[in-house]
């Protein structure tokens, strides 16, 4: 059986290569835009996903994670008395200046602090590294921080807001779009650096068998509206919603993705339009012979889908290498996940099919009677 659309693609190789290359560029643009957006979201969520508990408590004024409203310590003590709460683990977050030598330039660094005896976060440390955090004036440094901090080695001295500390080891977290590097220290060391600081959030571990919703209700009942309580997933969703809608990262990168797909649509349409124009009499002959509009539309859409498929695979391959390079250079997590690939593939197919439908209008409007 003859698949006309397939033959038109395969036997018009240069035109098909041009169409696929154009769509591949469009797919690459869309995937890179999506990659940037998701890298910002993913990097922002790392700290949430690292939580070693079931609930996270924030001050209700802290509408997103880059806004650092403090919690009153008394509230954390109150939460600890709620039935079903096994542990409340405060986290301090502070922006400080760090240098790796007395004369080196200062670099802004985010300092996370908590109790090393029961850390609220899992940051890829070894037991001995974590143990070193119990010593005074010892810090851990994020090995995935941007290279502006220089080559650091365990045991070397660092200066944080002018005070000398010792590097006890490394953690794994990664930068965000606004944070270049992260340092971790114990609560007591941080207090020695900045005595006035208060916790910015707390991770709550719920007792085995306790009902999460009941514990959430209990916390709300105990401390009122002053704090917000989230499950890990709820906080991640809120952060994504904020970044997408309010920040407005979603709009910026969404526009980039849409522009990429639009470019693909236009290229696909243009190639199909020219290809059909060149064969308009052959298509009109099909109609004269009794093939219906549905057949010719299906033929053109089949071409469009094949262009899209080829273009998508090429674009995906290119995006893989671009993601690797960008991730290496920015430190941001550029992840080509199956759902993201699938969403782009569907969008690419739909855009190409739309281009095919629009391009097939000229076939529908062709008059077989004009062949005589």
């Amino acid at each position, binding site marked *: 059986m003859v698949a*006309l659309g397939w033959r038109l693609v395969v036997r018009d190789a240069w035109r098909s290569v041009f169409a696929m290359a154009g769509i591949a560029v469009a797919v690459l643009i869309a995937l890179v835009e999506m990659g940037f957006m998701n890298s910002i979201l993913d990097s922002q969520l790392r700290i949430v996903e690292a939580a070693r508990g079931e609930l996270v408590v924030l001050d209700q004024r802290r509408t997103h994670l880059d806004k650092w409203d403090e919690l009153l310590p008394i509230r954390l003590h109150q939460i600890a008395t709620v039935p079903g709460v096994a542990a409340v683990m405060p986290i301090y977050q502070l922006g400080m200046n760090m240098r790796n030598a007395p004369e080196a330039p200062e670099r802004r660094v985010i300092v996370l602090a908590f109790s090393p005896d029961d850390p609220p976060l899992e940051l890829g440390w070894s037991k001995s590294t974590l143990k070193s955090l119990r010593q005074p004036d010892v810090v851990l440094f994020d090995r995935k921080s941007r290279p502006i901090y220089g080559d650091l080695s365990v045991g070397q001295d660092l200066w944080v807001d002018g005070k000398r500390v010792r590097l006890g080891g490394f953690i794994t977290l990664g930068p965000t779009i606004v944070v270049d590097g992260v340092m971790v220290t114990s609560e007591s060391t941080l207090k020695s650096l900045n005595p006035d600081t208060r916790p910015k959030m707390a991770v709550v571990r719920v007792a085995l068998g306790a009902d999460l919703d009941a514990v959430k209700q209990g916390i709300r009942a105990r401390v009122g509206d002053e704090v917000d309580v989230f499950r890990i997933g709820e906080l991640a969703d809120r952060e994504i919603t904020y970044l997408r809608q309010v920040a407005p990262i979603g709009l910026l990168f969404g526009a980039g993705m849409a522009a990429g797909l639009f470019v693909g649509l236009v290229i696909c349409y243009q190639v199909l339009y020219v290809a059909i124009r060149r064969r308009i009499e*052959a298509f009109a*002959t099909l*109609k*004269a*012979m009794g093939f219906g509009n549905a057949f010719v539309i299906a033929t053109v859409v089949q071409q469009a889908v094949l262009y899209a498929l080829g273009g998508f695979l090429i674009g995906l391959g290119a995006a893989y290498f671009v993601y690797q390079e960008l991730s290496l250079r920015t430190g941001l997590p550029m992840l080509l996940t199956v759902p993201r690939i699938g969403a782009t593939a569907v969008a690419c197919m739909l855009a190409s099919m739309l281009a095919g439908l629009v391009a097939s209008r000229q076939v529908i409007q062709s008059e077989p009677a004009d062949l*005589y």
Partner: protein
Amino acid sequence: MPETTANANPNGSRIRCRNLSYAYESGADKLPVLSNIDLDIDAGEFIILTGPSGSGKSTLVTLIGGLRRLQKGQLSVLGSDLGGASENALGMLRRDIGFIFQDHHLFDALTPRETLQLAMRLKRDRYGKADYRQRPEQWLQRIGLRQRMDALPGKLSTGQRQRVAVARALVNEPSLILADEPTASLDPESAAITLDCLREAVRERRATVLMISHDNRHFALADRVLTLVDGQLTQPI
């Protein structure tokens, strides 16, 4: 030269026109092309339609082929009344008609074999899997292109391409064939093969052929020669 009239055997005609008129509209103006055509063409007739340029030959053939909508008069083709026929009904009728145009209008991406296989899809109920292999080969053998059946049109001569177009029109053995100067630009060999195929369809299957031609060497092949002048059928030559 066979004797004929424009109205023969009104019962069982494959084509039957009564008071058929047609005018092209250009803004508010109407340009009449056909006026009160009465015509009957029977099964197994080979008709040549001739006349000067602009006399309405192509318009008449496109009306008969269901490629144009009726404006005035009655027209019945292969038993279907085309007055008020839907687009779908016209499409279905055209599947029973073999169209041959002056130009081949082949898809450059389809080989002769594939071109015929595509045409066979119009009558897919008739064919089994083996037919899609054998039938195109038989037809391409018939038109002398069996050795070139897997060549793309770009590798064929003009005459060879037109022969493929003829085979495309005939592969489903239509009972009505409408041809528009099919040999106008062909070499003698291709022209002879084309006319042989048409004559054979008439002789062996009682197909009806209506062929536009200006070449009076072809007139001897026809059962009747109809002449259109200023949109009206005149006495046959």
